[in-house]
């Protein structure tokens, strides 16, 4: 077969866009994966003790470093679209707990064994803090029900209801109604207006561990929200007192979209979009230093949601129609499930909204 020098020259020598930067990025990933491989091999002789210490340190570091993002089986997941070894159906959750899922067909509960129950044709939902109840929206109505779907109460609001959030105490539910922010007691009583002209951002309750209760019990319902001019407000819902936001309020406020804080805090998982890829970053640094990349994929990822034990993160990958359960303390461990849209919209066109995780909780029933 004859050669073609001009073709060879052009194909070999013409510069490629971004080649040097790509090489640098790839080297960092490859080097990190190699470091993990090296430390995972058995140590010999006098190096054993030193290496054992190093492995321990590295295992921790890998859990928190970009190295952890691309090692083990995980690397198979990031070429193209979808994890290659995804299971064809959601058969079980990788750890204890139950999921609350919003889909085209309604709100579902998924149990640890993978079984699902459709609670009804609702749009958005929130767990009560111990998983005994669910509050769900349906147009201008907010309903509270048990996990079997038996409705305990409903209320109507003047505007379309969105972003319900059950307080950590269990005694309040905040929600948006049109441009208003409203609060209702957990038993459906005392529904009232809290603020007008709020931004379309889910309000956030101060976590239980951050609350400072007064002897009379006040101070147990602190809510942070954003108004339409993007100003952040923190208020004691019961007394109406305006408060300074603490960092945990702001962390919680961010969890309505691309960020999530595990139960008990101590870390933030964030989805970042860079160069056409979404990266799942986990930061355990109180100073907010950029965290490690646990997973990276082309296109958009949704979530993330922490497992109740804080060891797993669940993200959605709509383009691949998959859910990915990503272990946070064991780099490279990913459990993927395929055909997620169909499973939460049986008989549907598959073109509705991609199922969204509204909560992952360990019920205390």
């Amino acid at each position, binding site marked *: *077969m004859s050669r073609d020098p*001009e*073709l060879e020259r052009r194909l070999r020598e013409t510069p490629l*866009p971004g080649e040097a930067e790509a090489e640098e990025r790839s080297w960092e990933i490859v080097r990190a994966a*190699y470091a993990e*491989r090296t430390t995972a091999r058995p140590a010999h002789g006098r190096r054993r003790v030193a290496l054992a210490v190093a492995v321990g340190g590295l295992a921790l570091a890998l859990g928190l470093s970009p190295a952890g993002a691309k090692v083990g089986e995980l690397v*198979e997941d990031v070429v*193209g679209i979808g994890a290659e070894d995804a299971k064809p159906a959601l058969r079980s959750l990788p750890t204890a707990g139950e999921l609350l899922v919003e889909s085209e067909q309604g709100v579902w509960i998924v149990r640890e064994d993978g079984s699902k129950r459709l609670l009804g044709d609702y749009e958005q939902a929130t767990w009560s803090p111990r998983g005994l109840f669910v509050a769900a929206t349906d147009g201008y109505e907010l309903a509270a029900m048990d996990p079997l779907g038996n409705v305990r109460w409903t209320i109507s609001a003047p505007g379309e209801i969105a972003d319900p959030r059950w307080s950590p105490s269990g005694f309040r539910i905040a929600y948006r109604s049109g441009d208003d922010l409203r609060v209702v007691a957990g038993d459906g009583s005392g529904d009232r207006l809290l603020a007008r002209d709020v931004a379309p951002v889910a309000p956030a309750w101060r976590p239980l561990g951050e609350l400072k209760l007064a002897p009379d019990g006040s101070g147990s319902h602190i809510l942070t929200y954003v108004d339409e001019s993007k100003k952040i407000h923190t208020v004691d819902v019961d007394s109406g007192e305006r408060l300074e936001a603490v960092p945990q309020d702001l962390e919680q406020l961010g969890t309505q979209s691309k960020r999530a804080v595990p139960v008990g805090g101590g870390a933030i998982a964030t989805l970042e979009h860079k160069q056409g890829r979404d990266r799942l970053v986990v930061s355990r640094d109180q100073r907010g230093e950029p965290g490690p990349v646990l997973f990276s994929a082309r296109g958009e990822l949704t979530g993330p949601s922490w497992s109740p034990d804080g060891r797993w993160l669940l993200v959605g990958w709509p383009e691949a129609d998959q859910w990915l359960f990503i272990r946070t303390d064991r780099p490279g461990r990913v459990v993927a499930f395929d055909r997620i849209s169909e499973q939460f919209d049986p008989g549907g066109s598959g073109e509705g909204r991609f199922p969204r995780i509204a909560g992952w909780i360990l019920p205390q029933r």
Partner: protein
Amino acid sequence: MNAEPASERLAGVSRASALHRRREAALVRDAQRGSEQALAELFRRHWRRAHRAAFLVVGDTAAAEDIAQESFLAAIRALDRFDRRRPFGPWLHRITVNRAIDFSRARALRAESAGEAAAGSAAPEAGSISDELLGALHELSAEHRAVVVLRYVLEYTPGEIGELLGLPRGTVNSRLRRALDRLRPAIERESS
């Protein structure tokens, strides 16, 4: 002017090639034993060509970066099982090119299922590489592009390409011939 007799030049080339192979085998051995420096040298030697090969097959810089990176990671995972008597490059290139072909096929399938024009979704990104040549390259199938890349970028013989891709040598030659027929007008237009 080169005063070396042809036989000595050939011998020199052969010695250099043998030295290169021995040096590479040593790098693989050292990398197997945990030398990051050896791995870095292997990466430096092979990443750019793997990346270029992937880019020319898939026509997408992000995907090419992924594929080249994944190929190295796959190589690292299999490093302990690697037979050092065999050259590292072809091993890596086989992984890279096959992944690039798989990616292109999967993308074409997705484009079909999404009702998009496959050619449109596979169109190469604009960049400093000749757009006309890339355009012509991407009118070929992924399998044809892979053969072109293995021949003209990675410099394998048709027989070696056949071994790498599991194809008869005649098939490799016919693919190369057909590809050249399609690419030549683009090259000539650009040259003129």
